[in-house]
């Protein structure tokens, strides 16, 4: 079981890293999800691998599974879920507004507007 879990974490991490290094945004989002799966399994394994045990600590009970990593993983899953949703929306809006899925920003596109007033004249000037 150790080998199974360790290789699963390794493969998920490898896939995640490979996809995250892509230039396009969609593979990056998918890669980040894979990374978070790997992290979740990793956290679970950190509480030691036990099968068929109750997550309770009580006097006299010697065989139990550590409940804390499970709580941590639950939190991590929720956060990763929210973050995935955010990256999908961000990537999608960037794609719709610029027409390309590439994560690079052209230097010539980096036009900033200064000052507080939402001044259309100044924007068209730049």
């Amino acid at each position, binding site marked *: 079981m150790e080998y199974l879990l360790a290789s699963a974490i390794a493969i998920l991490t490898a896939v995640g890293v490979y996809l*995250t290094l892509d230039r396009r*945004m969609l593979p*990056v989002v998918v890669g*980040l999800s894979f*990374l*978070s799966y*790997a*992290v979740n399994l*990793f*956290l679970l*394994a*950190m*509480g030691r691998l036990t099968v068929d045990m109750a997550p309770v600590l009580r006097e006299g009970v010697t065989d139990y599974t550590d409940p*804390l*990593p499970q709580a*941590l993983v639950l*939190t*991590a899953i929720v*956060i990763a879920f*929210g*973050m995935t949703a*955010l*990256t999908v929306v*961000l*990537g999608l*809006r*960037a794609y719709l*507004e*610029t027409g390309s899925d590439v*994560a*690079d*920003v*052209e230097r010539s*596109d*980096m*036009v*900033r*507007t*200064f*000052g*507080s*007033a*939402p001044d259309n*004249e*100044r924007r068209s*000037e*730049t």
Partner: protein
Amino acid sequence: MNHWLVVPIVLPALAATALLIFARNDLSRQRFVGVATVIALLTTSLVLVARAAEGPSSYAIGNWPAPYGIVLVLDRLSAMMLALTSCIALAAIVYGINGWDARGKHFHVLFQFQLVGINGAFLTGDIFNLFVFFEVMLISSYGLMLHGDGAWRLKAGFQYVVLNLVGSSLFLMAVGLIYAATGTLNLAHLAERVKVIDPDDIALLRTGALLLFGVFAIKSAIVPLHWWLPGTYGAASAPVAALFAVLTKVGAYSILRLHTVAFSGDAAGVSTSLGAVLVPASAATLVLGALGVLASRSLLELASYSVIASMGTLLLAGAGLEPRQITAALYYMLHSTLIGAALFLLVDVAATGRGRAGDRLTPARTIPNASMIGPLFLLTAVASVGLPPLSGFIGKLAILDSLRATGMGTLAWIVILASSLLMMAGFARAGITVFWAASNEPASPAGVLPERSATVPTVVVFMLVGLTAALSLASGGGMEMLEATAREMMAPSGYIDAVLSKSVSQVP
């Protein structure tokens, strides 16, 4: 129990929720609640500074005892950081309500959630909880960064998000490793466990700890993990960039906190391994930041690279664990946060007046109120570079003095002084291009600013620069306070005792 401790987290969270529910479309009410909350936070943090002088205290959330429940811990360091955050937040929000907040929805909601994350990171006494507050901080910083318009900023934001999500994954792995080796995530409990760790687990623990410091290095933009900063800060709107000046300091704070509490006294050899990496990395950060200032093509790049350089200076002093070095690093942290925020706001003020040229370092027309903004830029530059009489000079002097006797003294002196010279040249070049090489042609009517949008920002910048001036005027008393802070950090038993009551610390 000391309920003041939870206010800096709960108050902005409540304010943000209330804004979202009751004042969705009412900008003036949002402004009022936002500013009122930040002022209340400033008051609270001053109360907390006074309380922290009596020694560290802890707050068990839900009254669960320490190693099991989540604790918030207040000591001099966290109180100081809270006060600093409130000052910057006040400047940023006053700058923001001058019109920036009308350029997109939910500026004030995101701003308050950002404060929840920052304050929480400063107060928490638990590594996993630190992760959660980092995420709160980052989610709202994504939102704030994208506030406004420009499609390219979506992509700049995407890069920032991805970088930080990879950082979060590493953070969780580090948390897992540390938990596997010690069985706890509470900082104070960790400090006790690390001392009695099984020698077989030392390698695992050290890997986890260094991975964690790597994540903090991403947040604090240490070379070679600095490249995200100019793009991100350049894309953020001015008040947001000013608030972001605190975000890098959260990374530095976390490094100092874990270094001095959880792995105090070179436990498990973590400090030695960390110092071996951190000293050259921060020296490289400083040099690269100074070169960036010199080579920058726009004022925003200049400001971003000066933030990077200041992080290098700060951690060069903070990497060592001598009280004098920590004192100097803390002083420089206060100074560089204030002046970093001032610089970003000032760049916005100056670039607004330059019309088409914006913040590019090319000669352009004269800024309408150059007689006001020019001297202000000079003051900010003087403080950033570290020339007398402003606080940058005192900070750098204290750092140089504290490093004199250490093994890396010569290297550190050369690096700090040479990079100061480079930065001085960079700031001088920028100032000459923007203010002296300006043509005298009258501003075209389309580019003339409405008067109101120029006075309030200038006053805000002036206040921030005034704070650094106050910091240098009060440096005697300030240094004494910071020395007390450094002494408290070097003796973490007070922190540990405040978190773990005697009966509970015996539990395995």
